[in-house]
């Protein structure tokens, strides 16, 4: 086989995958809009994706906020610029606009996306998805829709909590380590934060929630070949959703603040 053939084959395989993902996405969205809805399952997935992710999100954003305050202080100290109000602004904007959604998105991709891919993948290889079809239950409706809806609606809530904790992380370091004035810090944080910043973060959160759950479902749904296939599906779900999160994060930022 020549190099050209290899490149051609890889390219065709890539196009095929893009097509498959697109069709999967459209079918999943169409089922999100048509009854019947399994509210019980949506509730359970909201607990699974949202509530149980809280500790990991809290820790991630807390330390992100803390290290941000610490390092920006170092930077300002070197250039002898007035750090006190700048740090509060840096922390609150970075967390709400970028770090909160991205770090939380990546953590949720690792925690939730992988578990969705493994669970649905196992259901695929043990014929449980076929069993759903024989029991007149649409697998998209039963497996994919509840997870995707739960992802889209709970991620923004998670990010709100993450943002608050992230700002609090910056506050702890600024007050107790760098000796800033607490009232001034909180006031600056609040004054410098515009609605646009929060909206941008929440839009990102909803998009990332969609991406993570959808890629988990897609990879699991199309897994084959027993335990190894489920392993591959899990890897692919985390890798593909992480990459998509980083790319889409840039695009959404450019959309909000590009000009």
């Amino acid at each position: 086989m020549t190099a050209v053939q290899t490149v051609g084959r890889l390219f065709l395989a890539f196009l095929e995958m893009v097509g498959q993902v697109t069709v999967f996405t459209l079918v999943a969205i169409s089922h999100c809009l048509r009854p019947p809805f399994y509210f019980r399952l949506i509730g359970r997935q909201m607990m699974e994706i949202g509530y149980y992710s809280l500790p990991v999100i809290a820790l991630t954003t807390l330390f992100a906020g803390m290290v941000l305050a610490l390092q920006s202080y170092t930077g300002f100290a070197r250039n002898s610029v007035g750090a006190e109000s700048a740090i509060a602004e840096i922390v609150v904007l970075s967390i709400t606009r970028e770090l909160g959604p991205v770090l939380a998105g990546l953590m949720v991709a690792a925690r939730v996306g992988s578990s969705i891919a493994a669970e649905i993948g196992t259901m695929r290889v043990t014929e449980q998805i076929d069993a759903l079809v024989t029991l007149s239950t649409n697998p998209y409706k039963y497996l994919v829709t509840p997870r995707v809806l739960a992802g889209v609606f709970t991620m923004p809530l998670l990010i709100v909590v993450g943002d608050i904790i992230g700002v609090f992380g910056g506050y702890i370091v600024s007050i107790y380590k760098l000796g800033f004035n607490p009232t001034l810090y909180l006031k600056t944080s609040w004054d410098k934060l515009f609605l646009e910043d929060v909206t941008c973060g929440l839009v990102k959160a909803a998009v990332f929630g969609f991406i993570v759950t959808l890629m988990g479902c897609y990879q699991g749904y199309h897994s084959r070949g027993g335990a190894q296939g489920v392993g591959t599906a899990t890897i692919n779900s985390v890798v593909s959703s992480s990459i998509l999160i980083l790319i889409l994060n840039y695009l959404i930022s450019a959309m909000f603040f590009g000009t």
Partner: protein
Amino acid sequence: MTDIRISLKDVHKRFSTKVVLDGVNLDIMPGESVVIIGGSGSGKSVTLKCILGLLTPDSGDIEVDGESVVGIGDREREHINAKIGMLFQSAALFDSLTVWENAAFGLIAGKGMSRRDAQPIAMEKLALVGLDDKYAMMSPADLSGGMRKRVGLARAIAIEPEILFFDEPTTGIDPIMGDIINELIIKCCDETGATALTITHDMASARKISDRIAMLYKGKIVWDGPTREIDNADNAIVQQFIHGRAEGPIEIESRRA
């Protein structure tokens, strides 16, 4: 309107270059219990999956109650599959649900019945397959293979289907449990008057549960006749298979090739 319940007409299916079904023709009458026998990889499971719409045949037609089911939409498929109950080889129970929720699945998720109404029916079907109340709240993971098949059977019959499919019902369980499953299959078919289509390579089970046997070999039905006549079948392939001889016309595929 025809009297034939399931009709396969010249069904072809292949995976890339490997031909699995090469023109399968089979008619199944209402109330009949038909067993398809054949070696591993002869296309038995693919045949069932084509009827259920899990796979789409490359060519040919499949009719259930006179309606063509090839290439139909989701809604029609749900309507057709509501008539069919299926027992999977590995039972394919939902491991996130308890035993009774599994048995009630077709009623709750498929037919939209409330959990409260579905539970007594599920318990009744579980009792029919010999599982009492103490199993109801258990997880399928805590059950043995034979027990799981019983739950799978209860799940399949809970929707009171007109057609029952059994995929290797006795494979992977001990002979006594296998015979219990055979008895249950006969009992379920007799009580509900359902049409049954079973695929297996277990001849003892095939003889016991079937009215008619069809032998699938190299993607074609090579012999089809009443169960009592299979011993006198004038077909070298059937004779080799039912006597389990290593020597004969059947070519065993070499996995290493």
